[in-house]
């Protein structure tokens, strides 16, 4: 007579496992693609347009009021002047602070100049951007060169120092993150 089969059957439970192979395949494709286009150094463009030729620049009428804002980057500090002044209330020298250029003081001074001397635009005109081809409203100021700052430095000055001055003169940001334009058009020159 045969033995009766055992009733102690062992139930083998296999836990269902998610098949993640397709997701892995997707990852393997996505990661190299994103690595190729990732920007680890954020770069942007600092635009500069050289001034028109001297003949074209002088074609304006003599009745036009000019601000003639100049920032000279000297070895001892910044020299800021209006109307070609070399002394008096339209001239200011901002010395170095602890061996470094006092860029914050320069920007504060330019903010004051913009507020007290330039003021607000008296009108706007429609113009077309030569680069993008889009039209925009250009403000008209009391001074024809109210948006221009002439920046001059010695030939051996590091490029970074000039870029800092361009930045300080372009605009300033308030505590709420609102950007206020100052003198966004730089004119670069060299001190001989």
């Amino acid at each position, binding site marked *: 007579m045969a033995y009766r089969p055992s009733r102690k059957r062992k139930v083998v439970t296999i836990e269902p496992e998610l098949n993640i192979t397709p997701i892995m395949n997707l990852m393997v494709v996505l990661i190299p693609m994103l690595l190729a286009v990732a920007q680890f150094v954020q770069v942007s*463009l600092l635009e500069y347009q050289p001034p028109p030729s001297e003949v074209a620049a002088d074609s304006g009428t003599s009745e036009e009021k000019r601000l003639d804002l100049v920032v000279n980057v000297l070895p001892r500090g910044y020299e800021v002047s209006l109307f070609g002044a070399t002394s008096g209330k339209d001239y200011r020298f901002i010395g170095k602070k602890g061996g470094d250029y006092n860029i914050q003081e320069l920007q504060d001074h330019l903010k004051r100049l913009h507020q007290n001397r330039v003021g607000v635009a008296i009108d706007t005109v429609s113009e077309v951007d030569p680069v993008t081809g889009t039209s925009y409203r250009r403000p008209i100021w009391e001074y024809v060169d109210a948006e221009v700052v002439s920046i001059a430095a010695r030939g051996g000055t590091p490029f970074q120092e000039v870029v800092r001055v361009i930045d300080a003169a372009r605009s300033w940001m308030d505590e709420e993150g609102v950007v206020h334009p100052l003198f966004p058009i730089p004119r670069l020159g060299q001190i001989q």
Partner: protein
Amino acid sequence: MAFAPSKRRRLKTTQPAGLMLTSMMDIMVIILLFLLKTYAVTGALMHPSVANLPVSTADKSPRKTLSLVLTSSGLYEDVEGFVDLNVARRAEYRIAPVSEFRSEKEVTLPSLEVFLKERRQLESSLGKAGLSREMTIQAEKDIPYAWILRLINASSTSGYDILEFVVETDAGGGP
């Protein structure tokens, strides 16, 4: 009386040996999120070709134009992967040597003017409508300012009067 144990061979449940992918998935997800955060559409267009660009608060997006690289060893045409080229390979793309920048006789860059003239002729032969005026310059932050002015002068006299300097973005926004 207890039953005698079965003499039949015990059935072995064989499970396929699967690779444990869960931990790898965790890493992949973290890398993917990080890369998605740093993803930029313009990244493919503009990779810095010099290591020490000037820092600026400028926020204009990079665009693809005629691109030049100004380093302490001279002026070069910017090509894909320029930063990885060795000195010998870089020399193939040199437009103007340092001696031209240091020259007291010239106020412009004759080699650059020749290069830009050839570029103009190429554009004309290809029938390109409208002459391009834009040029992108990647210059090291320690480059003497006089070199920059000389480059600006030579470019603008050759008709490239919209110059865009590539800068490293300063997120702070302060001066």
